[in-house]
C-alpha cells in the first residue's frame, strides 16, 4: 500500500509540472519537455497494474459513494448552468449537460449521472441513458462547437439503457451519430472515464483528444457478469471475466486506448470527493491546454489518427 501511495504522489507531482508548462506559450522547447514528462508518466503508470485486482476495481468503480458527474461539477467548475432536452422527444436525467466556467473559461460539461439513494437512482435510471440522453449530449456539444467552447466529458455508466422505448427511438442510431460527430467537432474534447465505462453507452460520449481514466475506473465492451454468463455460461465467474477482459486503466494505457491515468486518494475516490477533485483538476486543465495548443485542423487530424491507430493487433497471414 505504501508503494501505491508513493507512486501516486510521484505521478501527481509530474502532472502538476505538466500543467504549469502547458498553460505557458506554445514553443518547441516546452513541447519537448512535456513530451519527456509524459514518457516518464507512462513508466510510472505501468506500476499501478499490480496494486489492485480488476474485480476489486469493478467494485470500486460501482461504489455508491463514488463521485459522480455533478460532484466533479461542484468541486471543479463555477457557474454551472444545466441545459435540458433533445428538442425531439424528451429530457433524460441519466445524462447531464451544461455550460460552466473552468479556470476562468467557458466550457461545455457533460456526463452520465447516477443516483445515490433509491429515489435518485430511479430518477437517474442508474446512469443508463436512453436515445434522448445521447441526442441531448450531441445538441450540447454542437452548441459548444458553434461558439468555440471546449468540451469536457465525464463517463460513468453501466451502459445505454436496453428497453423497448430505447429500441423504438433508435438507441443504436443515437450512439452511432455521436461517434461520427464527435470525431469532427472543431473544438477540443477532453474525456475522463470516472467510474464504469460501460460499452457503447460510454463510448457515445468518449471520443476526444485526450482520454483520462481514474485509477479504479473500468472501461469495457461488456460487463464482467455479462461476459461470464456468455462465455463461461456462469455469471459467478465475473471475477475471472474482469481479469480476462483487460478493463483497468493500466491495461488500457498499455493497449493504447487511454492516455493518462488519474490517481485516486488512498482507498478510492469515494473516500474523499474533494481530494479526488483536487487531483483530477490540474490534469483536466493540462489536458485541455495541450489540446488547445494545436490549430483546429491539426487537432482534428490528430484526433482522427489517434483513433485510427487504436487496435493495430493483426498480421498478414501467409497465403
Amino acid at each position: 500500500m505504501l508503494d501505491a501511495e508513493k507512486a501516486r504522489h510521484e505521478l501527481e507531482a509530474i502532472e502538476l509540472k505538466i500543467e504549469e508548462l502547458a498553460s505557458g506559450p506554445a514553443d518547441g522547447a516546452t513541447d519537448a519537455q512535456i513530451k519527456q514528462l509524459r514518457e516518464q508518466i507512462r513508466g510510472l503508470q505501468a506500476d499501478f497494474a499490480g496494486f489492485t485486482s480488476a474485480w476489486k476495481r469493478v467494485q470500486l468503480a460501482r461504489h455508491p459513494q463514488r463521485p459522480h458527474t455533478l460532484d466533479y461539477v461542484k468541486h471543479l467548475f463555477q457557474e454551472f448552468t444545466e441545459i435540458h432536452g433533445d428538442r425531439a422527444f424528451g429530457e433524460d436525467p441519466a445524462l447531464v449537460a451544461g455550460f460552466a466556467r473552468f479556470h476562468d473559461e467557458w466550457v461545455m460539461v457533460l456526463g452520465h449521472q447516477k443516483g445515490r439513494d433509491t429515489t435518485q437512482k430511479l430518477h437517474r435510471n442508474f446512469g443508463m441513458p436512453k436515445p434522448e440522453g445521447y441526442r441531448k449530449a450531441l445538441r450540447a456539444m454542437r452548441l459548444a462547437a458553434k461558439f468555440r467552447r471546449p468540451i469536457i466529458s465525464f463517463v460513468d455508466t453501466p451502459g445505454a439503457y436496453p428497453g423497448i422505448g430505447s429500441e423504438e427511438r433508435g438507441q443504436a442510431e443515437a450512439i452511432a451519430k455521436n461517434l461520427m460527430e464527435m470525431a469532427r467537432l472543431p473544438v477540443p474534447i477532453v474525456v475522463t472515464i470516472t467510474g464504469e465505462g460501460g460499452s457503447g453507452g460510454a463510448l457515445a460520449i468518449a471520443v476526444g483528444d485526450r482520454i483520462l481514466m481514474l485509477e479504479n475506473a473500468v472501461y469495457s465492451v461488456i460487463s464482467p457478469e455479462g461476459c461470464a454468463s456468455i462465455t463461461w455460461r456462469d455469471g459467478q465467474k465475473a471475477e475471472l471475466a474482469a481479469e480476462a477482459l483487460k478493463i483497468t486503466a493500466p491495461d488500457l494505457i498499455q493497449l493504447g486506448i487511454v492516455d493518462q491515468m488519474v490517481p485516486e486518494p488512498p482507498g478510492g475516490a469515494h473516500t474523499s470527493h474533494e481530494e479526488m477533485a483536487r487531483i483530477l483538476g490540474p490534469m483536466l486543465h493540462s489536458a485541455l491546454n495541450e489540446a488547445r495548443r494545436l490549430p483546429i485542423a491539426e487537432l482534428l487530424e490528430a484526433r482522427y489518427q489517434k483513433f485510427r491507430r487504436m487496435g493495430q493487433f493483426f498480421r498478414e497471414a501467409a497465403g
Partner: protein
Amino acid sequence: MTWFRREKQRLRASESSQILTEGLWIKCDGCRQIIWKKDLEPSWNVCGKCNHHFRLDARTRLRLLLDDEQYTEHDAGLESTDPLNFVDLKPYRERLESAQQATEMHDAVITAEGKMGGRPAMVCAMEYSFIGGSMGCVVGEKITRAIERSIAGRVPLVIVSASGGARMMEGTISLIQMAKISAALARLDEARVPFISVLTDPTTGGVTASFAMLGDLNIAEPGALIGFAGPRVIEQTIRQKLPAGFQRSEFLLEHGMLDAVVPRSELKSFLIRSLGFLSS
C-alpha cells in the same frame, strides 16, 4: 430338429446403396415447410413459398451484388493476433482457428471492389458464421481501410452487415473500432462519397450502434433482426415478454429508423438506382 434355421450370414444393407440426405434439406423458419436446399440457390436463399429470407454468406452476397459475380478482394489475409490472450472455456485462438477453417476466411468481413450496374463500387460483406460476425480489430481495420479507399478513389461504399456486435474476446479494443470506423465515415461524408448501409439478419450491438446506422441510406432485408440490445437482454431488464415483430426490419421502418425494407431479389437494382441519385 428345428423348423427354421438361421442363415449363416446376417442380412446386411450394402453401404453404397444408402443415400446421405443429411444437410440437404432445410426447414423454413417462415412457413415451416421442408425445402430441398438446392431449390434455394436460384432465389439467393429466399423461400419460394413464403418469401422468408435465409442468411446469405459473405461470398454469395458479393456474387449477388457485383456485376458478373466478379470482384477483387482487399486485405484478405488480415488476421487477429489475439491482443488480450483471451481464454474462457476455450482459448480465443482456437475459436479463431476453427472459424477460419469452417469459413475459409481470416476474419468476419470481406472487403471487395467490383462493379455495380457498370460503375465501380466498394462492398464490404460481413460473415455471420465467423464468430457471430463479431467486430474485432481486423473487422475494424478492414472496414476502415475500405472507407479510406472509397475516399481516395471516390468509389461509392456499400456495407452489408450481419453481426452480433463487438467481439468480446478482444475487449475494449473491439469497442473502440466503433469509434474508429465512425471517424472514417465522417471523412467519407465530408468527401461527399455515397455510403449505403444494408442491414441483414441479424445486426445488433456495436455494429448497429456505429456504421450500420450511419449510411446516407440505411436499408434492410425483410424480417431481419436489428437492434442495439439483444432481445434476451431486454427481456431480462424489463421482465416482460417482447411483442411479436419487435426489432424486425418492418418494426424499424415503422419507427422511422430505415429508409426502406428491400427484398433480396430487388436489392441490387435498388442499390444501383440509389447510387445513381447519390453520385454527383
